[in-house]
């Protein structure tokens, strides 16, 4: 008690008032930040980028030892299974060899048909590989932090992030050599998709769980359990035909789907650089 009194007497009046209103002031700032975030002003993204620029390298440093152990374990496991793996790859290689000629023929035919129809191709997309350094999967958010390295200047918000199975998420923010990815399972994620089989369109939304919902589907959509949903390319934000999810329940009232990837097994991802949206000047002219 005596010590507190000493402290109390040392403080001047202004400081005491400031201290009393500090919590209320900070609450007000936090509320303001939420409001500004909701309105989506550029100010928040600037602040976020600044803090992310400092925190992401720290997380990467913390993740380095785990990466080294994981790498060592995987290499050891690969050596143990090397003969079985080799046999499996040989068989796959034979199958692919037979498939290669068929694909060549189809591609040639496709080229001729496109020429006849005067089809306009979309620009070829570039891609970059990035390493996952951290993952956040909670009731509140589903995101990844990835290390871009020298490719960082080429990467922008909104680009698709995929793995060998399909779409994982979209770039949310790039700062320094790092980027944050919003997974398709995040509550904030809305992906325009189309059924690969019936070509019925919809919007795939996340709920921070492994279950995704397909909304805004046509009334008479022919969607069934097991159907693959791929990106529709509508809106121009994502390239078309990237596998996204598989339908798990196709009810009358709600259609649910499961993502193709497992968030915990993501180590390396590919970022697709896809810029077909017109710039502001062109948009103005078009309007």
């Amino acid at each position, binding site marked *: 008690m005596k*010590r507190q009194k*000493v*402290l109390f007497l*040392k403080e001047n009046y202004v400081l005491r008032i400031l201290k009393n209103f*500090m*919590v209320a002031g*900070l*609450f007000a*700032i*936090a*509320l*303001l*930040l*939420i*409001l500004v*975030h*909701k309105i989506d002003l550029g100010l*928040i993204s600037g*602040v*976020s980028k600044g*803090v*992310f620029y400092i*925190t*992401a390298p*720290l*997380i990467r*440093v*913390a*993740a380095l*030892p*785990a*990466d080294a152990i*994981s790498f060592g374990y995987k290499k050891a496991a690969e050596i143990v299974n090397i003969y079985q793996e080799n046999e499996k790859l040989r068989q796959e290689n034979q199958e692919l060899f037979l498939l290669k000629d068929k694909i060549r023929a189809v591609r040639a035919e496709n080229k001729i048909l496109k020429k006849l129809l005067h089809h306009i191709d979309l620009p070829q997309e570039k891609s970059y590989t990035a390493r*996952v*350094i*951290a*993952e*956040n*999967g*909670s*009731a*509140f*958010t589903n*995101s990844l*932090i990835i290390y871009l390295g020298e490719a960082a200047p080429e990467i922008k918000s909104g680009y698709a992030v995929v793995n060998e199975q399909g779409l994982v998420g979209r770039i*949310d923010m790039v700062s320094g050599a790092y980027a*944050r990815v*919003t997974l398709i399972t*995040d*509550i*904030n994620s809305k992906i325009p998709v189309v059924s690969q089989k019936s070509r019925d369109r919809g919007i795939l939304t996340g*709920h*921070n*769980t492994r279950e995704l919902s397909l909304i805004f589907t046509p009334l008479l959509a022919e969607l069934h359990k097991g159907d693959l949903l791929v990106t529709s390319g509508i809106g121009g934000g994502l390239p078309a035909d990237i596998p996204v999810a598989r339908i798990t329940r196709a009810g009358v009232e709600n259609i649910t789907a499961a993502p193709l990837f*497992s*968030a*915990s*097994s993501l*180590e390396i991802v590919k970022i697709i650089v896809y810029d077909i949206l017109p710039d502001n000047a062109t948009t103005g002219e078009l309007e």
Partner: protein
Amino acid sequence: MTALKNFLTNLSVFIIPLLSILVMVLIFYIPRYSEFWNLLRSVPFYTGIYFWISQRPDAFNSVSAFVLGTFADITAGTPLGVGIITFLVLYFCSLHLSAYFNVKKFAYSWLLFILLAGITLLFKGLLVCAFYRSLIPLKPLVFEFLLVSALYPLLARFYIWTERRFIHLEERYEKI
């Protein structure tokens, strides 16, 4: 010169709790490639904030909670401000409720933490629901609450060690 020295000493008292929480957060951020581990990412924040306020309120203030909230929001990708408000609520409740509990006894301290963790996580859940105008899943939220509550004794050990090893408040009072 003495004033500067005093200022730095005061600052270090506030920085050590902050650093201890951030160190634990970074350790929990080491990828384990398991979905279970993801739910543990936020545990050091809740346990750390509660521990420092209830045990050493003179070493942790609302600005520290604000800084941690900003860090949590930006690394996790939640809307900026949600984590800050959540941690400020935890700070405010801990500060006022710990006076009514005998928090020097570990069992009571743990019980109070369970209560406060429940309130805080529920508050954060409601805030996120309101922000996105969509319901968030209850199952992971409950699971996160159980994990946060169960891991408190383990993390508190580390914070107790930090407090004993690095904070010499006796010296600070003498200087003042």
